[in-house]
């Protein structure tokens, strides 16, 4: 672990506009690329780091390695053809795309999804959140060399993928939340199998807590690393667990409740130290909250009722001119869809707002300064970024 040296005399002097005058030919600084192929990077992005000794002087995020032009693709497709595309924007937690897109289309088309569909949608979103958090915990521990944690969390995530498979027929891209409702109800015996999976997740989380959160090495490296000042939350558009770890209880599920969240009993999980350790702990406790929410959802879900609202023929579906924004609380923060329609059978514009857009670029570039090279990977993982959200 690098020890912070308050002596800034080794650092380049900032120019009048605040930019650093770094002379790479001086031999004092070295430019390092972390990514796009690097074990310490989250997905397909890269970091351009300028280091002085072991300490980062400047960091720049580069994206674009996974740009597939989703927003443009959707402008040339009918509303129903966009449905199988949207989930591919985010691999570990695709369901938020389906929900936000479906809810935006429903709002502009004047469709009301049935109540039972809303319960199932909430269940799917919470299941996806668990998957995403389990992946994060494995990655966060792995960034500090605790490889075995990732094996445990991958195992229980696989059990949750089994539940997804029996519900939707797919493990990764579920394509279950259609505009108008959901594709199907719960299979027979689903509640019992889900309860077994939840118990297994709880047991594993207790082991993760013992081995990771009580581990002296993890604590020594994670406590105090990557401090996010609560005053940065609004200027940098910080949402989700990163904001909650800084003591700001912002959770869309509570602030602007959607689907059946008003009927569930929960309080947003918050922390106060705003460092890497607190962020990991907030996510671990949020995962346990999701386990509790799934139990509440399964207990309160109506056993019968329609699953799909009446929707127009998908071949001739035109939506009047309008625009709306739908948001939800995904595992990384605020996820939203801004949809603009023009009266034709195609969306005029779809804009996806992922939390990584602000976290991985502006916030990360600020946080990485003065960090030791060996901590950069862990710092990036602690912001829980998924590059496809940035470049869509």
């Amino acid at each position, binding site marked *: 672990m690098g020890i912070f040296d308050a002596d800034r005399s080794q650092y380049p002097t900032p120019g009048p506009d605040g930019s650093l005058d770094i002379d790479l030919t001086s031999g004092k600084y070295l430019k390092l690329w972390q990514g796009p192929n690097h074990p310490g990077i989250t997905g397909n992005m890269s970091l351009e780091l300028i280091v002085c000794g072991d300490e980062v002087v400047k960091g720049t995020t580069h*994206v*674009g390695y996974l*740009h597939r*032009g989703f*927003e*443009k*693709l959707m*402008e*040339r*497709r*009918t509303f129903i*053809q966009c449905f199988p595309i949207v989930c591919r924007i985010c691999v570990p937690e695709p369901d938020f795309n389906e929900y936000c897109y479906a809810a935006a289309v429903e*709002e502009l088309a004047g469709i009301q999804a049935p109540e039972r569909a809303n319960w199932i949608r909430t269940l799917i979103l919470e299941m996806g959140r668990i998957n995403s958090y389990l992946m994060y915990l494995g990655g966060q521990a792995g960034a500090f060399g605790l490889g075995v944690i990732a094996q445990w969390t991958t195992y229980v995530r696989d059990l949750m993928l089994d539940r997804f498979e029996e519900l939707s027929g797919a493990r990764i891209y579920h394509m279950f939340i259609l505009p108008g409702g959901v594709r199907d109800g719960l299979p027979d015996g689903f509640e019992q199998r889900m309860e077994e999976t939840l118990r297994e997740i709880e047991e594993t989380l207790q082991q993760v807590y013992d081995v990771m959160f009580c581990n002296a090495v993890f604590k020594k490296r994670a406590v105090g690393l990557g401090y996010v000042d609560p005053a940065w939350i*609004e*200027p*940098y*558009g910080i*949402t989700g667990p990163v904001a909650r770890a800084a003591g700001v209880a*912002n959770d869309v599920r509570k*602030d*602007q409740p959607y689907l059946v969240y008003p009927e569930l009993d929960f309080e947003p999980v918050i922390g106060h130290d705003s460092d890497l350790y607190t962020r990991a702990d907030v996510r671990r406790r949020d995962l346990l909250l999701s386990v509790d929410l799934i139990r509440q959802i399964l207990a309160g879900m109506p056993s019968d009722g329609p699953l799909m609202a009446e929707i127009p023929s998908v*071949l*001739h579906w035109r939506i009047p001119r*309008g*625009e*709306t*924004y739908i*948001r939800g609380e995904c595992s990384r923060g*605020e996820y*939203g869809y*801004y949809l*603009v329609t023009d009266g034709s*059978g195609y969306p*005029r*514009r779809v*804009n996806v*707002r992922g939390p990584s*857009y*602000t976290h991985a*670029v*502006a*916030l990360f570039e600020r946080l990485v300064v003065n960090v030791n090279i060996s901590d950069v990977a862990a710092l990036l993982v602690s912001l829980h970024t998924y590059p496809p959200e940035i*470049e869509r």
Partner: protein
Amino acid sequence: MHPLYERLKHLFPLDEVTEQRPDLLFVTLPREHLRSLLLHLRDIEGFSHLVLLTAVDWIEEGQFQLTYLLHNRPKAQDIGVRIKLARDSATMESIHTLWPTAATYQRELREMFGIDFPGSPGVEEDFILEGWIDLPPYRRDFDTKKFSDENYNHRPGRETHDPAEYMKQQLYPNGL
């Protein structure tokens, strides 16, 4: 009318107003008043969270629409501020001094729509598309099919159908 609109209409020349939901209002404003409206919304009305900044290409009307979406957390209220720009001279004032994170949105808009934000940090650097020399790709007049035909090899066995016509043929092979 929405209470927020009632308060704003005396201070700013708002054009078109849409109350999409009780918690989501869209207003249109002449471009020269944008900064003062955003400052008022941020510092007086409590809309301190910049949710997104994006553009919509209304090519038929020769205009770009910029949408600044702001959120007031304690009141759980959103407002979308729409600014109309002429497509042929798309330049807009930067708001990175109000929200540092706006610089990323502006950099992307310059690359994808060709809307310039002079003075925004790093706005001239490539964001996603490295070495792009064609028309900004998210403009409506950028033809993705033509670009694809010109730049990529054709893979045999792939056909493109008009979805409505194709489905009609599949569902009703003998005619309606």
